[in-house]
């Protein structure tokens, strides 16, 4: 991607990072508290939210994953969004 990144890019990225942080915390918590039903529900709720946000991100900035976890545009657009250490 050659255009300079907009505020909207950083806002969406941070929104994803925030939701994924909740998922990370819940993952480790549930690893030692597998019977906490409320936490499982929160986990599933945020997993859904994360997927929606990533769908939106990928439509605008290109794939987040490889190996078939994300779809590709044409031409192959893995390099479309900047690499994490470049932003």
């Amino acid at each position: 991607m050659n255009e300079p990144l907009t505020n909207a890019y950083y806002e969406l990225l941070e929104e994803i990072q925030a939701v994924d942080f909740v998922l990370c915390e819940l993952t480790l918590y549930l690893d030692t508290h597998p019977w906490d039903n409320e936490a499982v529900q929160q986990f599933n709720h945020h997993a859904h939210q994360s997927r929606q946000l990533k769908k939106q991100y990928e439509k605008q900035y290109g794939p987040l994953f490889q190996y078939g976890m994300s779809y590709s545009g044409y031409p192959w657009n893995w390099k479309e969004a900047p690499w994490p250490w470049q932003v």
Partner: protein
Amino acid sequence: MWYYEKKLQYPVRVRECNPRLAKFLIEQYGGADGELAAALRYLNQRYSIPDKVIGLLTDIGTEEFAHLEMIATMVYKLTKDATPEQMKEAGLGAHYVNHDNALFYENASGTPWTASYIQAKGDPIADIYEDIAAEEKARATYQWIINMSDDPELNDGLKYLREREVVHSQRFREAAEILKEERGKKVFF
């Protein structure tokens, strides 16, 4: 199998080019209590640990790779515009001669990473207590680096990483209790 996700776990920002801070940060890249050691330690121990804690070791080990990428990003941003002269002034002259501005798995004093930093005793209690100790040492190291740093933007990322070590330690302590319970059951039957 693992999937790479093209984003950082938490935003990394630095105020300015500062190879001196990068030199300290490398401790958490390729040092004894750094993120590489953490990731490899947990992902290696998980094969021989009781089933109830394999998930935790897998997930924390995976998160450590996300932290490794954050540290790499910090080092990269702090050194990418540094001249050879600035590298030398920062105590990175020997690093520059060997690696230019590339990253390398070494500690703050330039000693390359070694597998002898990590243990695998096969005894679940011994291994999980090593993991708790590793998290506490990593937390302390982050604090020492924060104490050396005057970059508030960098410190925001470092404080996040320090807090993750606190959470990891807590989860490993819970895992230790789970393992003790399991061990008790085995003896009982």
